């Protein structure tokens, strides 16, 4: 599997606080990579570095072949991003949102039009093209937000707790979308607090106190920690974290 994210001893310090400490890992093309950790373990810092939003203190990393120190602009063109908090503009219609995000990534008008139709029919939202996003149910918003985040066909999509507060049925429909995208070759880098969702990932890394404490497939991790669930694996690893208060 060709790697799309490669990091080597990637480190970020804020003054004398080491938020992310010598992270070394690879993520392959089309892989669903779960990025777990307790609150304050350094997940957000690591993710921001990979998205080209934060300059590392030391270490090396490339994302889709581009260097995260010098080629952040190229990286940004090749990645998608979605979080539970930031997604769509409530006061724009479904179509306007798609057009806006397509426009941001420099897509041509025709290209956007084709993509819009494709996307709406896939989500079965054809009838809602002119509906304001604020009027959509939460589950639909979430699915639409994901589709919009990959509207420019990025190689990697970063999902930051994408399913918070969503009902179990919608959550699964959301994961169907993730599977579909990964099947098409998009690498999915996802953080979540739902431990059952960790099971859906091809591989999972668990961060504790700024370092990667474990990294493997869910099955292998469960075997290694003699656990029946990822919940238990996570608990064993994160329970002794020192940075709980941070």
């Amino acid at each position, binding site marked *: 599997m060709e790697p799309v994210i490669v990091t080597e001893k990637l480190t970020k310090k804020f003054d004398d606080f080491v938020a992310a400490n010598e992270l070394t890992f690879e993520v392959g093309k089309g892989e669903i990579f779960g990025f777990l950790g*307790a609150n304050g373990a350094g997940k957000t810092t690591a993710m921001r570095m990979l998205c080209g939003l934060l300059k590392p203190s030391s270490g090396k990393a490339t994302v889709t072949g581009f260097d995260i120190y010098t080629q952040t602009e190229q990286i940004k063109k090749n990645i998608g991003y979605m979080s539970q908090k930031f997604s769509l503009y409530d006061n724009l219609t479904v179509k306007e949102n798609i057009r806006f995000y397509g426009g941001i990534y420099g897509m041509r008008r025709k290209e956007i039009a084709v993509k819009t139709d494709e996307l709406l029919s896939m989500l079965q939202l054809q009838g809602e093209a002119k509906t304001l996003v604020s009027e959509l*149910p939460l589950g639909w918003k979430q699915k639409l937000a994901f589709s919009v985040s990959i509207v420019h066909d990025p190689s990697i999509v970063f999902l930051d707790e994408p399913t918070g507060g969503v009902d179990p049925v919608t959550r699964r429909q959301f994961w169907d979308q993730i599977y579909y995208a990964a099947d098409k070759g998009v690498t999915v880098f996802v953080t979540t*607090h739902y431990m059952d969702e960790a*099971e859906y990932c091809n591989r999972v890394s668990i961060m504790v106190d700024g370092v990667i404490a474990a990294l493997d497939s869910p099955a292998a991790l469960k075997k290694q920690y003699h656990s029946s669930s990822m919940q238990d694996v996570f608990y064993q690893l*994160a329970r002794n974290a020192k940075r709980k208060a941070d």
Partner: protein
Amino acid sequence: MMISVSHITKTYNKGTIHAINDISFEVEKGEIFGLIGPDGAGKTSLFRILTTLLLADSGEAKVNDWDVVKDYKKIRNGVGYMPGRFSLYQDLSVEENLNFFATIFDTTIEENYHLIKDIYEQIEPFKDRRAGKLSGGMKQKLALCCALIHKPVVLFLDEPTTGVDSVSRKEFWDMLMKLKAQEITILVSTPYMDEAVLCDRLALMQEGKILTIDTPEKIRASYPLQLFAVKTNHTYKVLNELRNYKDTESCFAFGDSIHVTFKTPTDEKTISKYLSDKGDTDLTVEKIEPTIEDSFIQMLKN
């Protein structure tokens, strides 16, 4: 009865949005009662009605035999409430926050220290730290202390663990169990299904309605179909194949496996054969007991 809700309805926007639609339930003293449901199910509106912050359009509700409309002052004196987006005073220290809420409720930290002792000991090392600098889990613990400090008869916790990591969530629930042992009635809401089993009884909510109310065991036992779990390394492929199977009733990813139900009774061998014909050999199929989440998914579908 510690809490009794009968036919409560609440609408917004001049009746166009039904936040709560004719809900009734009762909670007994010393019970942990869970309101389980996604965002928009009406959990927060219900909490606000019970804590006298909102007036219902119709119906009646009582907390500790106090009417939520007539006796609102008594309720305000006697209950503890942790709102969903409650985030304390970020610029005050842990101790200052706790002191403030103790005073507002006309008590002192010392007076009810026994109630919060277990929880407070965990955050005490950080008592001089500003609340804004605490982690999500620590904040929730502090907020719980603040809600408990005046020894309420009922504790209302609106999504106390949302956005908190699973270790902190577990610790938080351990604390609720200890409070239950002290006979404090707890009404708690959560979007996390794994927390549901920890409740004595729970109500599954969706779009302002209660789908079912029962103990976790009974809810699970009422699952109408035989559930199968298929484990494979090619989840997405198998998922699609099972969905295309003519007899499939429902099929979705569930943790490390795929949960499937069928329209007509069948057995593991038939399913294995269908999948191996499709080229999937490295897999296991077994009959399993449903979880709360399976039950919820089943009810949402109808």
